[in-house]
C-alpha cells in the first residue's frame, strides 16, 4: 500500500520544472494590482513625517474639496472603528518571570505618531494621482518629541517614552536557561567575552504590498485581494473587526511577488482601512503600496545588540554560553516574541552545549515595526555563535574547522533536546541530523585542503588577499499549529488540490503537485493547486517559518494517501480484483498481469459520484479527502556554507570566487526549487553581510528609502553557487521533510566576516558587526592597527 518508501519515489525528489512558470513568465499570473473592478476608487495614505511627534492640529478640508476626491478619513472620522488589530502571536509563553507589554498599531493615528510613515489620514479618489495630490493639501501641525532611535538608549532610565502609559520602553523580557552556566564558567580554561551589533534591513520583496476590497451590499459579502502570507487569519480577523460572518468574507492571496515574512503581519493599517473604506463608500477600493511607502510602512528586521560570554576548555570544547541581548521591536510589538525566541534557539548553533543562559530585552523605538523577516532571528544567533567560535579558534590556536568538529552534535545524539522553548513555544528539540557529513561534503566541494595548503600560499606570495570561510548553521523549521489540504479527483481525470497557505514564489504549484502525484499516480502537470483563497479552503495559518513543505506538504500527503485508498477500494470493486493486485500509474488503475482489465481515474471519478442508484450506508461521494497535519514541534534543518573571496585591501571591494552550500533539509521534494530557495537566501544573506542596511539618523529618519541608496543585491553581485544536498529524513513526519525557505540567508554574515578576516590575514582586526561595507571595513582595519 501507499507508504512512502524513501528509495522508491517516482515523482518526489525529481527536478520537475515548475507548473506555474508559463503563467508567470508570460504575464498571465494575477497579482493584486491586476485586479481592476468597475467603479474602483484609489486610496493614498497621508503619513507622518516625524518619527515621534504629537499632532497638534489636522485639517483635511482642502483635500476633501479637491476635484476627484471621494473622501478623506482621519482617526476622528473612524471613531470606534479605529481600534488596534488583534495581536498575531499571543499570549507570550509561560516562561518564569516573562514580561510582555502588548502595544499594537491602529488604522489611523490619533494623538501621537510613533514612527515616520505611520498613517494619519487616508484619501480616497478617482485615481491614485488625484489621491496623492490631495494628500499634499492636508494641513498638519506637529509638536516634535524627543526621539528614541537607539535600542540601548531606549532602555536607559532617562529615555523618552514611545508609549507614555508604560514606565519604560521595555516591551518584553525573558530568560531561558539550560544546565548551570555559572558552574561551567568556573571550570573553564578560557572565557571569551564580546559584544556584537546587528543592524536593520528590509526584505524588499519585488512586489510591494497591495489590497483591493470589494463590498457587495446586496449579499453583504466582502471580497479582499491581499498580498498577505496568511489569508485565512486575515479573513477571520477582518470578519471579527467588521462584524461579518466569516463565510461572508473571502480573502484571496493571489500570486504574490515575494513575501519573506513582512507580508504576514496582522493587521497593517492599510489592511484594516481598505476593506472598511470599501464598505463605507460602497465602492471597490484599491491601495497599492509604492516603494517609498514600503521602506517606511512595511515591517523590517535584524536590529539586535548582544553581550556574549563563552566558556571553553583548553582543547576547544564548549562548556557553556551566556548571551544577553536587546532586540528592537520598533514602535509596536504585534508579532510577540517570535524573533528574539528564534535568536535564543539558534545561539547554540548545531553544537553540543550543556550550559546556557540567555536573557533578552525587547525595546520599543521610534522606528518601523519589526516582525520576522527571512531568517527571523536565526541569523543573529548564528552570527553570535559562529563569530565566537572563530575568536575562540584564534585564542586557543585551534583550526577553525577543527574546533567546530569537536563541538558539533554527533549523529547518534538525536533527537537532541535542549530543554528550552522555540519560537512556537514548543520544546527546542533537534529531530535528526548528520552534521559531520555536511561539513565533510562542504570541505570537499570547496577544496578546503588544497586551498589552504596550495592556493592560498600562492595568492599570498603574489600579494593577493584571498580568504576562505566555512561554517555550519541550523534552521528550526516547520512549526505548528497546523495546515490542511483537500485532494479531489475530478471527473476530467485531473486532480484538484486546495490548501489555506498562500504562495509568494515558493513553487508550491509544483512541489505540492509532486506530493499528490506521487500517491495518485498522475503526471505532475495534471495536479492543479489552489493556494490562499478562503473560498477554496478556509482553515490554516499561513506561509512562514519555513513550514510550507513540512506542514502543508504533509497535510497534502495525508489527503493524497486517503484518496489513493478510495481509488483502490472503488477500483477493486469495479475491476473485480483484490486491492493488492492493483497498480496505479499514468492516471489508470489496472490489474497486475491483466493489462486489459483497467479503468481510468476519470471514469472512476464519475462512478464515485453517480447520478442515480442506491448506495451503501456511510458512503461518501467522490474521490476526495481532506486532511490536516500539525507537528508537536518542528524539524530542524542543517547546512554548511563555504566561501572563497578576494578583497582589495586598498578599496575594500570584494570578489567572491567560489561559494558552496550543503543543505540538509530532510526529504527533498524538488531539487530545482530547493536550489532556487537557497540562491535567494544567499542573496539576502550577502545583502545582510555587505550591502543592505537601513540608515536611520538620530531622529529615526530613514536616510535611504529608495533602491538608489538601499543596496539590494543584484545578479551582478551574486556568485555562482554550488549547492550540494544531503537527505537526513525527519522522523517527525511521513514525508521526512524539513523546511528550507530561510536557510540560505542564515549563515552568510558570519561566513563573510570569517572569510574577510582570513583574507586580510596580515592585518590585526576582528569583525563584530553586520552589515559591513567597504568604508566600515576600512575603518575597522585601521582602528585595530592603531590600537
Amino acid at each position, binding site marked *: 500500500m501507499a507508504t512512502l518508501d524513501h528509495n522508491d519515489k517516482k515523482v518526489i525528489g525529481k527536478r520537475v520544472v515548475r507548473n506555474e512558470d508559463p503563467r508567470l513568465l508570460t504575464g498571465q499570473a494575477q497579482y493584486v494590482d491586476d485586479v481592476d473592478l468597475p467603479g474602483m476608487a484609489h486610496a493614498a495614505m497621508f503619513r507622518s513625517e516625524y518619527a515621534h511627534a504629537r499632532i497638534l492640529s489636522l485639517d483635511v478640508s482642502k483635500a476633501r474639496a479637491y476635484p476627484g476626491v471621494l473622501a478623506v478619513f482621519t482617526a476622528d472620522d473612524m471613531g470606534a472603528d479605529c481600534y488596534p488589530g488583534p495581536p498575531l502571536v499571543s499570549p507570550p509563553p509561560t516562561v518564569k518571570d516573562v514580561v510582555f507589554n502588548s502595544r499594537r498599531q491602529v488604522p489611523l493615528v490619533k494623538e501621537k505618531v510613533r514612527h515616520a510613515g505611520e498613517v494619519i489620514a487616508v484619501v480616497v479618489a478617482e485615481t491614485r*494621482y488625484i489621491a496623492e*495630490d490631495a494628500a*499634499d493639501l492636508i494641513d498638519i501641525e506637529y509638536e516634535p518629541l524627543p526621539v528614541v532611535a537607539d535600542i540601548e538608549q531606549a532602555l536607559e532610565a532617562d529615555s523618552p517614552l514611545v508609549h507614555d502609559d508604560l514606565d519604560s520602553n521595555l516591551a518584553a523580557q525573558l530568560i531561558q536557561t539550560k544546565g548551570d552556566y555559572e558552574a561551567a564558567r568556573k571550570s573553564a580554561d578560557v572565557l571569551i567575552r564580546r559584544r556584537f551589533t546587528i543592524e536593520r534591513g528590509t526584505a524588499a520583496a519585488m512586489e510591494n504590498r497591495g489590497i483591493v476590497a470589494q463590498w457587495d451590499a446586496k449579499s453583504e459579502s466582502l471580497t479582499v485581494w491581499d498580498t498577505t502570507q496568511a489569508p485565512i487569519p486575515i479573513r477571520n480577523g477582518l470578519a471579527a473587526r467588521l462584524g461579518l460572518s466569516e463565510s461572508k468574507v473571502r480573502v484571496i492571496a493571489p500570486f504574490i511577488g515575494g513575501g519573506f515574512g513582512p507580508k504576514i503581519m496582522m493587521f497593517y493599517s492599510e489592511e484594516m482601512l481598505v476593506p472598511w473604506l470599501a464598505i463605507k463608500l460602497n465602492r471597490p477600493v484599491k491601495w497599492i503600496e509604492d516603494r517609498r*511607502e514600503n521602506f517606511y510602512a512595511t515591517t523590517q528586521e535584524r536590529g539586535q545588540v548582544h553581550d556574549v560570554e563563552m566558556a571553553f576548555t583548553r582543547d576547544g570544547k564548549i562548556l557553556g554560553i551566556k548571551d544577553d541581548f536587546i532586540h528592537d521591536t520598533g514602535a509596536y510589538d504585534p508579532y510577540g516574541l517570535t524573533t528574539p525566541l528564534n535568536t535564543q534557539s539558534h545561539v547554540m548553533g548545531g553544537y553540543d552545549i550543556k550550559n546556557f543562559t540567555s536573557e533578552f530585552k525587547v525595546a520599543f523605538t521610534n522606528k518601523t515595526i519589526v516582525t520576522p523577516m527571512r531568517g527571523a532571528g536565526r541569523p543573529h544567533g548564528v552570527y553570535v555563535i559562529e563569530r565566537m567560535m572563530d575568536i575562540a579558534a584564534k585564542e586557543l590556536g585551534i583550526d577553525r574547522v577543527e574546533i567546530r568538529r569537536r563541538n558539533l552534535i554527533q549523529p547518534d545524539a538525536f533527537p537532541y533536546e535542549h530543554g528550552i522553548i522555540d519560537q512556537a513555544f514548543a520544546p527546542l528539540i533537534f529531530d535528526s541530523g548528520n552534521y559531520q557529513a555536511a561539513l565533510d561534503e562542504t570541505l570537499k566541494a570547496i577544496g578546503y585542503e588544497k586551498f589552504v595548503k596550495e592556493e592560498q600560499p600562492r595568492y599570498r606570495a603574489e600579494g593577493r588577499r584571498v580568504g576562505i570561510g566555512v561554517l555550519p548553521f541550523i534552521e528550526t523549521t516547520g512549526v505548528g499549529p497546523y495546515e490542511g489540504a483537500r485532494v479531489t479527483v475530478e471527473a476530467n481525470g485531473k486532480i484538484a488540490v486546495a490548501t489555506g497557505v498562500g504562495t509568494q514564489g515558493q513553487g508550491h504549484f509544483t512541489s505540492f503537485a509532486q506530493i499528490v502525484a506521487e500517491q495518485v499516480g498522475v503526471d505532475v502537470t495534471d495536479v492543479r493547486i489552489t493556494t490562499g483563497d478562503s473560498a477554496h479552503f478556509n482553515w490554516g495559518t499561513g506561509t512562514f517559518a519555513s513550514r510550507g513543505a513540512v506542514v502543508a506538504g504533509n497535510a497534502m500527503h495525508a489527503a493524497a494517501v486517503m484518496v489513493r485508498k478510495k481509488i483502490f477500494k472503488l477500483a477493486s470493486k469495479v475491476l473485480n480484483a483484490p486491492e493488492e493486485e492493483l497498480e496505479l500509474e499514468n492516471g489508470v488503475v489496472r490489474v497486475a498481469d491483466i493489462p486489459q482489465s483497467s479503468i481510468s481515474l476519470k471514469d472512476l471519478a464519475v462512478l464515485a459520484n453517480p447520478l442515480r442508484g442506491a448506495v451503501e450506508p456511510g458512503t461518501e461521494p467522490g474521490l476526495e479527502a481532506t486532511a490536516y497535519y500539525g507537528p508537536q514541534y518542528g524539524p530542524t534543518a542543517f547546512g554548511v556554507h563555504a566561501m572563497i573571496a578576494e578583497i582589495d585591501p586598498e578599496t575594500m571591494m570584494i570578489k567572491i570566487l567560489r561559494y558552496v552550500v550543503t543543505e540538509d533539509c530532510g526529504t527533498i521534494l524538488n531539487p530545482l526549487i530547493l536550489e532556487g530557495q537557497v540562491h535567494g537566501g544567499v542573496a539576502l544573506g550577502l545583502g545582510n553581510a555587505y550591502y543592505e542596511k537601513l540608515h536611520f539618523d538620530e531622529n529615526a529618519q530613514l536616510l535611504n528609502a529608495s533602491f538608489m*541608496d538601499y543596496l539590494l543585491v543584484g545578479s*551582478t553581485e551574486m556568485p555562482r553557487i554550488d549547492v550540494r544536498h544531503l537527505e537526513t529524513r525527519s522522523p517527525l513526519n511521513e514525508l521526512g521533510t524539513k523546511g528550507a525557505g530561510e536557510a540560505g540567508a542564515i549563515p552568510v554574515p558570519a561566513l563573510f566576516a570569517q572569510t574577510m578576516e582570513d583574507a586580510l590575514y596580515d592585518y590585526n582586526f576582528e569583525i563584530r558587526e553586520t552589515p559591513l*561595507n*567597504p568604508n566600515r571595513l*576600512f*575603518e575597522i582595519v585601521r582602528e585595530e592597527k592603531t590600537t
Partner: protein
Amino acid sequence: MKPAPFEYHAPTTLDDALSLLTEHGYDAKVLAGGQSLVPMMNFRIAQPAVLIDINNIPDLAYINAEEGGVRVGAMTRHHQSEISPIMAQHAPLIYSTMPKIAYPQVRTRGTFGGSLSHADPAAELPTLTTTLDAKFRLVSQRGERWVPASEFFLGLYTTALEPDEILAEGFVPELPPRSGWSLQEVNRRKHDFALAGVAATVTLDENDVCQNARLVFLSVGDRPMYAERASTLLQGQALTSEAIRAAAELASSEEIDPGDDIHATADFRRHLANVLCKRALEQARQRAQGQK
C-alpha cells in the same frame, strides 16, 4: 510616488522646444531620457509646472567623426555610444566607460545631453567631457554659444545653461598620438554611482616624458573636480611611481572636496581618490606607451 500635476509638451522641432522654453523659463524642465528627472518627479522632489519632452525631435541623436574629434548629439542614448565604432576610435575613454554607467535599461534611455545638463557630480559623462576638454553647443531663441566643459559645470546639479537654453550637442576632441587614458572608480554594486572615481589622460613624448596630463575626479566634490595642480605637476616628468604617487597625493589631499554620506565618509573617499588616481595614471601611462 506619483508626480505632481504638470503641463506636458512634446514639440517636434527644436525651434518649438526653444520657444516653449523661452515662454516658461524656470517653470519648465526639459525631458530627455528621463532617467534622473522622472524618478525625482515621482518622489515629488522635482515638481516642474511644465515638461518639454524633446524625444520627438528628429536629428538630435548622432555620433559623427570630424576633424580632430567627435560630435555627439544631445539625444544620443548611452547605449549608442557604448556600441559606436566612431566613439571607440576617436573617444576611447568615453567608449570604454559606457558599460560602467548604470545598467542596460538606463543606458537604453539615458542620453548624452541629459546626463550633462543634469550635472550630477557622481555621473561619469561630466567628468569624462571635462577630462577630454570637450565643449558644448548651447542653443536658445537668442542664438547659440559654445561653452567648454570646464566652464559648464558650476556646482551640484548646476550648469551654465540659461533657463531658455538647451544643450544641443557636444564636441569631444581626440587625444593626440602617444596618449593614454583611464577611468577608475569604486562602485558598491556594479551599476551604482561611484563612491569615488577619477579619469586620467596622459600624453607622452618619444622619451616617455609626460607632455600633458589631465586628472578629473568624480563623486568627491560638487562638480567634476579638475586637479589642475596635480595635472601640471606631471608635465615634463617621466611617469615613475614616485611622480604618480606625488600627483595622487597632491590631488587627493588638496584638490578635491569630498563629502560624507551614508555610503562613505569624506575620509574614505579621499583615500579612494588617492588609490584610484595612482591606478588611473599607471594604466594611462601603460596605454600611452603601448602606442607608437
